[in-house]
């Protein structure tokens, strides 16, 4: 009898879904909005995190040398810096390479290129690009360079400038902006999630409100609580599953469309490839939320009408 009952409850739930197709469609659409919000929230968290990590990776020190600096002296300095325990990588960019890079970067700007031609000689100094093992260690590396300890006392100072300190201010500011965006995002997330869950809950409650006469008839013919409640909970679960699957499908073109924009806006974060890489995780979150919201809303909403 137990399985017959379960079978009947599930069957009735499906029947109600098909037969009240307009109401079902409306409920599924509202639920999709909720799930979409939940989905986008998980994306925004990932975006902020990746951006923060990327930004930290961007921190480096560029030591620019005066144009008259000897390549040998620079390479010697490179060697010294490489021996520092805080430093993980030092890259040397010669004057010629620096010029080529500069030209490439400004390939579309004719005035700069012609100014460069007029100059006749290469105005750029060679550059050493230094990466530390840990962002916190940049300060000491920069100080070491600025203090002139890097060079033997008898040589002329070949270092033109160390750009760490200018970058640092900007990077610190960005880090602060991102972390407060993260906090704001979290508050917004909770706010949006609550609102959309309430809307989904209300929609399902409305569906059940429409069926209140039916429910009272069921009570009067002696149907038990579980027997009345069951199909509505099944209905809620079906709403959740259908809305969940639709949302997951809808996210494909949506993230594909947003992919390019996010990639250029948030350093190297492509929302589409993120979605594909974390599909199982996101699918689980969305499906579980849908099923949970649907079933819980139904179970709570119907209680009111079961009192007859």
């Amino acid at each position, binding site marked *: 009898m137990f399985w*017959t009952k379960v079978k009947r409850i599930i069957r009735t739930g499906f029947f109600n879904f098909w037969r009240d197709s307009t109401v079902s469609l409306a409920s599924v659409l509202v639920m999709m909005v909720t799930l979409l919000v939940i989905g986008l929230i998980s994306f925004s968290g990932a975006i902020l995190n990746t951006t923060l990590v990327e930004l930290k990776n961007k921190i480096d020190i560029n030591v620019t040398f005066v144009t008259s600096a000897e390549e040998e002296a620079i390479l010697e300095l490179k060697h010294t810096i490489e021996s520092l325990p805080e430093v993980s990588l030092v890259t040397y960019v010669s004057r010629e390479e620096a010029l080529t890079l500069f030209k490439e970067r400004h390939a579309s700007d004719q005035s700069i290129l012609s100014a460069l031609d007029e100059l006749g000689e290469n105005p750029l100094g060679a550059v050493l690009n230094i990466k530390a093992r840990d962002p916190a260690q940049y300060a000491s590396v920069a100080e070491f360079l600025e203090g002139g300890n890097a060079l033997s006392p008898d040589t002329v100072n070949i270092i033109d400038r160390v750009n760490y300190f200018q970058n640092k201010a900007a990077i610190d500011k960005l880090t602060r902006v991102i972390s407060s965006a993260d906090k704001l995002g979290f508050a917004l997330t909770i706010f949006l999630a609550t609102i959309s869950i309430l809307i989904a809950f209300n929609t399902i409650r409305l569906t059940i409100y429409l069926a209140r006469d039916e429910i009272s008839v069921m009570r009067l013919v002696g149907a038990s609580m579980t027997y009345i409640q069951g199909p509505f909970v099944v209905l809620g679960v079906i709403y959740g599953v259908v809305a969940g699957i639709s949302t997951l499908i809808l996210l494909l073109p949506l993230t594909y469309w947003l992919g390019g924009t996010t990639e250029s806006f948030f350093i190297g974060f492509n929302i589409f490839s993120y979605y594909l890489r974390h599909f199982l995780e996101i699918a689980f979150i969305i499906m579980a939320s849908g099923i949970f919201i649907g079933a819980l809303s139904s179970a709570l909403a119907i209680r009111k009408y079961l009192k*007859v």
Partner: protein
Amino acid sequence: MIVFDRVSKVYPDSSVALEEVTLSIEPKEFVSIVGPSGAGKTTLLKLFLAEEKPTEGAVYYESANIHSLTKKEMDIFRRKVGMVFQDFRLLPNKTVYENIAFTMEAAGRTDEEIESDVPHVLELVDLTPKVWNFPHELSGGEKQRVAIARALVNEPDIIIADEPTGNLDPANTYDIVQILKKINDLGTTVILATHNKGIIDLLKRRVVAIEHGRVVRDDKSGKYFV
């Protein structure tokens, strides 16, 4: 045996629907409750179904106080009572077959029983051709016959009909009354609330007249005097 013992019902707006009503109904009886609209007929039936609680007094069925039954006992009690309403109260999303099957499912009957009993009861009310129709595709008389079939299918001890012919034309009214009579002849207690004089004269059974919430007459012979 059904007993109303000094039952009063006062609604929250302090309108008195029933006042000290005492009434007993024997098994297999056919009782018509008559009276003008607002006399308290429906309240009396609602008290019996425990849709409403009495302000004072008690309602007994087979010596159990209906209003102190647990939820489970209430479900079981309600399966012994078949109900027919003026507004039919069919489930709009279910076909004729499913409306009747639902009552059997609720009572925990097996699929085999449902498959054999539903066609049988539909035959009894002469609705076999409409078995797969939805309620909105039926006429008033047909809907009421579905409602009666639904009330009958669990072989209840009692059938309660609240103005079952209120929305029907004379020909359909006659059909419904004949069906109720047939049910009573087969051994089911029938309680019928109506203000249709024609029905009472047709039936020639016990009549209880209610006015302003009081029983003003209890007549075994079956005449409508109100």
